[in-house]
């Protein structure tokens, strides 16, 4: 579904992505793992077209994304730190997004998370007054709102309370079962264990490996993801 070919990106002297090639298919749940500054977010932003790669190209359903923008209709994106117009209320932000993405009428809105997080009771609160966790809830609700085929979640549970993060996890599993492609980055490996089917490990802008979780367990001889990754990191 998403194929990145030899993608490179440089910010000044820093090489954020170095010749990265990945293939993501429908029905997979992929964890992007790597130390801070290893290029995970840059890769995600390149897929979304928010960062324009210096080299290489990315295709979505066989179409190059460089001059296309409609493909984003099929993506729900939850940023690491959601930034929203400060003087708009939650309700206005939700309405605006619905208004902007209205063109596809056959798609049902999925307001499950809006209700589960209790955002429908906070609709008149201004974005600037929200706590970090509530902002994350808004981001999560927006990512799932349009029932997209691809979910890209950048550290989804960072800043969420245990109840909310459990709700979000359940929701991710539910969507995965529907055959959607889910891309997650996270540093809390223990919570990825029962979610992911594939692991992409990145370091210093390089893609170190991309394998299924079974293969990773076999290769390292560890049962849990956190131990397996620790094993890989120690070897480096």
């Amino acid at each position, binding site marked *: 579904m998403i194929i990145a070919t030899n993608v490179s990106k440089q*910010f000044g002297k820093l090489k954020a992505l170095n010749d990265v090639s990945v293939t993501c298919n429908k029905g997979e749940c992929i964890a992007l793992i790597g130390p801070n500054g290893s290029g995970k977010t840059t890769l995600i*932003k390149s897929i*979304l*077209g*928010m*960062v*324009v790669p210096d080299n290489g190209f990315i295709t979505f359903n066989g179409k190059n994304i460089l001059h296309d*923008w*409609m*493909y*984003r*209709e099929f*993506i729900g*994106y939850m*940023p690491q730190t959601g*930034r*929203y*117009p*400060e*003087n*708009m209320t939650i309700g206005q932000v939700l309405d*605006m*997004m619905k*208004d*902007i*993405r209205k*063109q596809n009428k056959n798609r049902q809105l999925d307001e499950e998370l809006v209700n589960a997080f209790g955002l429908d009771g906070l609709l008149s609160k201004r974005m600037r007054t929200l706590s970090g966790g509530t902002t994350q809830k808004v981001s999560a609700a927006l990512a799932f709102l349009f029932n997209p085929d691809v979910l890209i979640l950048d550290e989804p549970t960072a800043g969420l309370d245990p109840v909310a993060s459990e709700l979000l996890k359940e929701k991710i599993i539910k969507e995965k079962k529907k055959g959607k492609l889910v891309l997650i980055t996270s540093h809390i490996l223990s919570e990825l264990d029962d979610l992911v089917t594939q692991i992409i490990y990145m370091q210093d802008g390089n893609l170190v490996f991309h394998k299924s979780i079974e293969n990773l367990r076999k290769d390292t001889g560890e049962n849990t993801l956190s131990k397996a990754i620790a094993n890989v990191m120690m070897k480096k």
Partner: protein
Amino acid sequence: MKKIIKYVIADILRNKIVLAYTVFLLVISLSVFSIEDNTGKGLLSLLNIILIIVPLVAVIFSTIYIYNSAEFIELLVSQPLHRKRIWISLFAGLAGSLTLAFFVGAGIPVIICAPGATGFTMVGMGMLLSVIFVAIAMLAAVTTRDKAKGIGISILLWLYFSLIFDGLVVFILFQFQDYPLEKAMIVVSGLNPIDLGRILILLKMDISAMMGYTGAVFKDFFGTGIGFTIALLVMFCWMIVPTWLSLRKFNRKDL
């Protein structure tokens, strides 16, 4: 596209600066016309105020607005929208609201108190200058990520167009006063939209006789239909070129 313009305009109206700007222009223009009995004199006083204030407000307000909308732009870019449309909508929203503010604040009083060719030219030029300086501000805002730097660039550009440029022209004229530079001055005036606007308005006021030989040459050129059309085309270039440049930059910008 219309939807984004709608949200931009709603947002601009909410922060009330544009409303304050409208009221300010309204107060100035009404007081100028009520002090002066002679509408020609009134227009002349208003001209100088407008040529300073309109570009200043347009350039600074737009730059700050673009920086403050960083979150909004980021949110929109990850949605199924063309980047070009997002940028053009921002431009349209800013230019539209500032032009409307100018029209209500200065345009309507001028049309009521001093109708005629001079008044209409002045209203037209004020609206064109509003749009041009929004375009320049957007170019300044897209070139740098640093807000302080971006606003600094905008202020310097405004200083350049409204003060420094004239100083340079006078300097060149004095240095080369032995040479006939009158025709060259027509070209030079095209390099500054504020000067171009001022010349076009002054020529309609029939006081160009006081501007000496250069004024006569200007009158010869800009006084004709072709000259006026060329001047308008140059003004439109001042609108389109910065917008196009900023659009190109925005299309490749990393957010």
